[in-house]
């Protein structure tokens, strides 16, 4: 688990936030929602594995 992961997620977040505002201001709320959804899926795919590794570490450390 690297620190880079957080900043990659932050980069995707900033990109999605900007696109979201851009599309909302230009009257395309549906596309804005789709963009947010796509960004959410991409980021979730990035962090799901890391969260799983975290819980595996906790289980092995505390003897579950």
């Amino acid at each position, binding site marked *: 688990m690297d620190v880079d992961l957080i900043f990659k997620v932050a980069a995707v977040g900033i990109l999605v936030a900007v696109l979201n505002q851009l599309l909302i201001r230009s009257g395309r709320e549906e596309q804005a929602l789709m963009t947010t959804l796509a960004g959410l899926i991409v980021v979730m795919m990035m962090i799901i594995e890391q969260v799983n590794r975290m819980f595996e570490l906790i289980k092995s*450390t505390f003897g579950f």
Partner: protein
Amino acid sequence: MLCITVVLIINVINEGSRVMSAVITVAAASYVIYFTVSKAVFMLGRIETIISVSGINHDLLDPVIKVAGISICGRMSAELCRDLGSRWAAGNIELLAVILSVVSMSPLIEKVLDIIGSI
């Protein structure tokens, strides 16, 4: 320092997309917990050494270490849910953590009752 940086990023992104700031919060919290627990492994190694030297029965201490793990996970998840605006989920997580802790401690309680009974 990392947490301050992440909080600043979250405040910037919060204006544009609350969903993305929530996901960054989860990513950052996971990394911090992962980093902390990976350091705790050394501490637990020391504790194991002390336990073996002092001759304390290992069965008595395993529940205590398990409860510590449950409390870390419960506290982190509850605060994360509260941070993301879901208080009912936080309350449920804390309740479940308490129940799991009591269940984990039950072997210890049985041993104590046995010792009292044998006196």
